[in-house]
């Protein structure tokens, strides 16, 4: 039953007098706002500001003579991200994704040839992400060791970037990298805390509960600053800990508490019969937890954990408190230059768009997983 335009309009815009009034106000308003934004974006915005400062926005103050390291790191992160997205989507249209990736690669090559080095880098990373997405959609079995691959990949990327000086990492690259590192480190801590909070030993329960509730009651900025103060006091003076590690430790402590709560809700959702079955099969307590309960618990809370990753990514700008140049701070650095201070809307719109693109992709992934699971669990 095809709905005609007339019927659709009547049903969705003019169903009742109040709805008609709302439509009469909101439709012209929408059109007018859209017109204003389009006119600004097409005719009065100076997008050259973004193109000129793409280097700072993407990698911050990274030493330019070693920029190949940053490019390779970006490529590696894009590949990991693309593979994960591919495993979530498992799209039938993987050929389309592969073609899109190839087209982007060609455009990247052309812009490299015409000396738009940073645009080429950004497009190249996108191309790699699309191809990786197509590959894992086509061959999902590659994804078996995705967790291990992330761990090794992020480790390798850190090792690759380290010679340039950890204090020089910055821009969007730093934001994504911190998200990956903090997620990978906070998840195991969170799992341990969750099991401790469900333990049969009251002392473990008490300690874990205290930790989780304390960390969930203080702001992230406080935790990051606290860990930044504490770490040099704890380590012997001859050991130099870079600012980044001192800050990321705070992120790990903070997000471990949140991950623990999600994992705990997952553990509580696993039917008691599962652990009883494991016990009657003679599993040790450790095997029971890690082979029987944990996989089922994690599977149930993946959407919530992905939401946690999005939250982490959105809160990485809190690193400004210890003076690191993440994506947002890089944008502010650009605007601090008097030459560009008149173009703040262009920079802010670009940053909003970049965050929105990555954030929407992550939350879309979370929704997809949730949808798929509710299908499976009849």
């Amino acid at each position: 039953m095809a709905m005609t335009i007339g019927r659709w309009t009547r049903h969705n815009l003019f169903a009742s007098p109040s709805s008609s009034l709302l439509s009469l106000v909101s439709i012209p308003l929408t059109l007018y706002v859209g017109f204003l934004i389009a006119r600004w974006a097409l005719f009065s915005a100076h997008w050259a500001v973004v193109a000129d400062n793409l280097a700072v926005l993407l990698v911050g103050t990274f030493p330019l003579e070693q920029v190949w390291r940053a490019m390779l790191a970006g490529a590696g992160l894009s590949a990991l991200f693309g593979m994960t997205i591919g495993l979530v989507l498992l799209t039938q249209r993987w050929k389309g994704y592969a073609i899109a990736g190839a087209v982007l690669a060609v455009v990247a090559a052309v812009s490299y040839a015409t000396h738009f080095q940073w645009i080429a880098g950004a497009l190249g990373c996108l191309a790699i992400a699309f191809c990786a997405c197509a590959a894992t959609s086509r061959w999902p079995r590659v994804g078996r060791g995705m967790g291990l691959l992330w761990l090794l990949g992020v480790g390798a990327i850190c090792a690759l970037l380290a010679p340039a000086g950890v204090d020089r990492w910055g821009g969007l690259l730093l934001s994504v990298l911190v998200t990956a590192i903090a997620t990978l480190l906070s998840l195991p801590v969170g799992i341990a805390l969750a099991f401790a909070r469900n333990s049969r030993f009251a002392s473990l329960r008490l300690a874990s509960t205290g930790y989780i509730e304390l960390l969930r009651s203080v702001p992230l900025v406080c935790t990051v600053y606290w860990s930044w103060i504490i770490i040099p006091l704890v380590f012997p003076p001859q050991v130099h800990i870079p600012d980044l590690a001192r800050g990321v430790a705070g992120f790990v402590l903070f997000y471990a508490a949140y991950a623990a709560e999600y994992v705990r809700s997952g553990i509580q959702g696993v039917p008691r019969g599962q652990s009883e079955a494991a016990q009657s099969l003679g599993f040790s307590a450790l095997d029971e937890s890690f082979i029987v309960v944990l996989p089922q618990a994690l599977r149930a809370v993946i959407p919530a954990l992905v939401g946690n990753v999005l939250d982490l990514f959105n809160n990485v700008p809190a690193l400004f408190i210890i003076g690191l140049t993440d994506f947002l701070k890089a944008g502010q650095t650009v605007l601090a230059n008097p030459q560009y201070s008149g173009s703040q809307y262009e920079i802010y719109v670009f940053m909003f768009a970049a965050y929105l693109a990555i954030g929407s992709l992550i939350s879309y992934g979370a929704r997809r997983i949730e949808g798929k699971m509710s299908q499976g669990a009849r």
Partner: protein
Amino acid sequence: MSQFKLSSTESRPFGSTPVPASGAPLRLRSGARARAAAIQTLILAVIVAAVLAFVGLIWAGLQRHGIGFSLDFLDQPAGFNISEGLTVAQGPHGLTLVPFNSQQTYAQALLAGLYNTLVVTLISIVLATVLGVLVGVGRMSRNWVVKNWAWAFVELIRNTPLLIQIIFWYFAVLLQMPGLADASLLHGALIASRQGVFFAWPAATAAASHYAWFVGLAVAVSALGVLVGTPRRRRVAFVASAAILALGLAFTGWPFSIEMPEASSFSVSGGAGFSPEMASLIIALGVNFAAYVAEVVRGALQSIDKGQWEAAAALGLGHRESLWVVVLPQAVRVIVPSLGNLYVTIAKSTSFAIAIGFPDMFSVYGTVGNQTGRALEGILIVMVVYLLISLSISAIVNLYNRRVMKKGAR
């Protein structure tokens, strides 16, 4: 088959206790209990040892840097100014709230920061709740344009960082507004300028001190009515106090008048207002958390059984009445706990104020820590205060939640 043997009474897989053979199980039981107690003690000892070792390391580190640990700095004069905020000071009639000045102590500076944090938290919570309920209801609207506006708002806000939103509101909106002289809106009732946002606000008149007696009497009558009990008496008491208030008006005249903000070239007198920093922080937090409140409201509305809508329709209620009178009140029970979590997050998120130079508690702590070198002591104080704020918000919400649940369970 030793692997099928039960290892201890603690991990017995079946709910019922097997019938013990006489003698032996008792010993087994006490043995298991002793072992559990030993493990408990061991765990406790390890945790305490770890914490002590950590504190010891920090102590040694402090000694190494020649700082030590002391709270003496709290009594010393601060010597810096805070752009806004009240602090507690000894007045002629006991403790009063006064504007902070640089002669006061570091402790009073932190209190002024705390005052700012609490003010921003409270106003943002109200703004986020009102806006969020509207947007959440908008997402359920049958009007296609409204529904998609609400959807776009929620997606845009939730998928971008709060900090960039705060910075955007401050640098790209508030600071781009016209100067005081050309910022008058709504016939002078609102001044939105880059020096701050000012608006008309009631101010006490000469009659206020007399009228206060009537207010006191009315409150006493209402309180008596509530204490005495029965709904009927309570209603009588409320009507009586309303009458007292009206009578008072007839005797004394209006206790307050609406005062317009008056802009001179550099400052504003009359009315009420916010500095640009406070205004952008409140707007950013209110708008940001409105999106989260909207999602909570939408989820709750969707969780209400479809039969409720149908029953309301069968009683002849329209869509809007069904929503506001039948469905939303039931959804409140689902909403309240999640809302409590959001309120705690709002209180914590005010700490981003330091990015735009608003003197909230964390930001004042930054200055105090820099001046005194007491960064560690300061952050411990700040963390404890945030902990207390979070716990009190949770406690209040839990109290309210219990009341809502009781009402629903009738």
